[in-house]
């Protein structure tokens, strides 16, 4: 993505990702799980990343943390502030993880070691990164981070099985923010929680994001949660960014058919008993179609879609999409309107 020249008022991005690719070499051939992903994130911004399972969103998160193991291969560049994560040696990246870029893992239930007290699990992060800390400092810091995630300090002496799902998730958040990183990647942090606990956990993440000015990347497949939480939203399909832009714009006027279908597949209060799934399944990354990867499931596919991969087109205001419809008169909006009219008439 060629970013628009930054104006004076716009703060410098804290996270810059340029042409990030992740390739796996398998017996069946090369498989690109993350395909030329580029985006920028300002300090304290909230970016959402949605996509179906297998769309490459978790792979991208791991690549940002430089946690992709061989035979996976990462190319492209990732900067946090001025530090280029992709250029660091092993020692440097180990110290940068958690300090510059933290992560709240997907399954908080299994991310904690069941036979170690919470205190030791938080202390682990602190002692590795800041060996100069005294025991008293570590203890004080543990109480501080537990309070930051709205847990009582005496939770530190408990084992994971003594905590509820929401509390375990809070401990994971506490570990992620223990070193006050600049960026946090939260990979489906609430997918196993019920709505009220989900709201409490998201409130906590939101408050920390504001107070510590942390940029948050929220990964998930729940468009509802995204609408409520993030400022900017990106949609991933088969390893590529289909669309990225301000959340309000994406919901009001999506510029990629996949975004539109994701939004309309969700139940709302307005229309009861209307089910609109997205027909078809995600293509296998080993047998991707030519041209646009979404064309097999796209109701608006055109001849050009099977020939040329759509380039990224800007719609102003940091809003970009990769769809050939952007070059057609009226774009996606007019197609959706036409479809709605014909549905009404028919």
């Amino acid at each position: 993505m060629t970013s628009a020249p930054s104006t004076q008022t716009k703060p410098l991005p804290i996270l810059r990702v340029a042409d990030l690719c992740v390739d796996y070499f398998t017996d069946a051939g090369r498989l690109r799980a993350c395909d030329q992903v580029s985006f920028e994130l300002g300090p304290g911004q909230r970016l959402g990343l949605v996509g179906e399972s297998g769309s490459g969103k978790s792979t991208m998160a791991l690549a940002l943390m430089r946690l992709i193991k061989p035979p996976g291969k990462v190319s492209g560049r990732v900067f946090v502030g001025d530090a280029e994560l992709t250029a660091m040696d092993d020692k440097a990246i180990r110290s940068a993880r958690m300090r510059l870029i933290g992560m709240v893992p997907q399954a908080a239930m299994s991310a904690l070691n069941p036979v170690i007290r919470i205190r030791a699990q938080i202390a682990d992060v602190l002692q590795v990164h800041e060996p100069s800390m005294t025991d008293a400092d570590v203890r004080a810091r543990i109480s501080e981070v537990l309070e930051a995630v709205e847990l009582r300090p005496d939770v530190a002496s408990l084992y994971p099985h003594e905590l509820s799902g929401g509390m375990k998730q809070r401990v994971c958040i506490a570990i992620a923010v223990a070193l006050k990183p600049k960026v946090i990647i939260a990979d489906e942090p609430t997918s196993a929680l019920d709505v009220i606990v989900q709201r409490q956990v998201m409130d906590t993440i939101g408050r920390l994001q504001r107070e510590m000015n942390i940029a948050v990347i929220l990964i998930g497949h729940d468009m509802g949660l995204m609408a409520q939480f993030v400022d900017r939203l990106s949609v991933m399909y088969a390893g590529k960014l289909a669309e990225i832009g301000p959340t309000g714009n994406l919901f009001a006027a999506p510029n990629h058919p996949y975004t539109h279908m994701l939004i309309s597949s969700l139940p709302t209060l307005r229309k009861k008993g209307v089910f609109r799934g997205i027909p078809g399944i995600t293509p296998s990354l080993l047998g991707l179609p030519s041209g646009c990867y979404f064309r097999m499931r796209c109701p608006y596919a055109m001849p050009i879609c099977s020939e040329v991969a759509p380039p990224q087109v800007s719609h102003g205001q940091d809003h970009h999409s990769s769809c050939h419809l952007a070059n057609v008169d009226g774009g996606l909006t007019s197609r959706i309107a036409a479809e709605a009219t014909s549905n009404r008439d028919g």
Partner: protein
Amino acid sequence: MSALLELRNVSKVYKSGFFSPKVTNALDDFSLVIDQAKPTITAVVGESGSGKSTLGSLMMGFIKPTVGDVFYKGRNMKSLTGPERWQFRQDVQAIFQDPFAAYNPFYTVDHVLTVPIRKFGLASNREEAREKMGDALRRVGLRPEEILGRYPHQLSGGQRQRIIVARAMLLKPKLIVADEPVSMVDASLRATILESIYTLHKEMGVSVLYITHDMTTAYHVSNEIIVLYKGSVMEGGEVASVVKTPHHPYTRLLIDSIPWPDVSLQWGREPIIKDDGSSPTTSRGCKFASRCPHVMAKCRDAGPPLFAVGTQQASACYLGETSPALQRSELHKVLTPT
């Protein structure tokens, strides 16, 4: 009316520990009637620990109630004869949460379809069995030629879950107990699975007990809804009235916490009060008392009965005490329109 399945003042208590047993009231004085003549989709909504899965297990006969009785076609489940039990197993089918764990990875997916055909003698020969399997798969929107002969790991979670729906349908059941059928499936595929459950209900007249923590999908598929909290019914009634005009403070909190996919609808107007453990855990007081913004002294002394706050809505809260009170066992009166 003739009841297919009836739960009459059912409670389920779990005890753990030997010397000083810790008692958990998983389900407390619960009554429900599933009518044979009028198939409906009933949603049971609640957070983890609300007793919704206990309810599902009771209805499928996996566990026995501690207090109260379950009746199948008017016969107490405790005294069913062999053939009756066999009939019950065919009439009541289950769809579980995890579309991965439901399969044996060593067999092709055909296995989950051929076993019930064989066990219940649904087909007299191989061709007929094959035809039935194909038909069931087509009904849930799958193409048999793409599915049969494959192994579970070769299919997506959504496809696997739809095969389970097809399996349940094969037996032409009267009731399907679906315990969180879509919570492990991608949001974009949920609609497809719910649609197939809904179509089967419409076309084949099957009742569905839809157990979920997701109010939005409950609103879309079901006709009636029951909100559970810590084993007790908080509110119940026709789904649109409950979702659009929730009466019970807990239901209001639940609905307010739904992340609607709409940037103009902000969540979080209702404050969340943390549970300080001061709610009565027995059936005497209201279990939501310690988290309730409207709590009154009497809420802690005696649990409120159900109040019929609308023609098709009942709420177990003293805020509705000007409305006529209902017995706990009369919940079905507000559920099924008369």
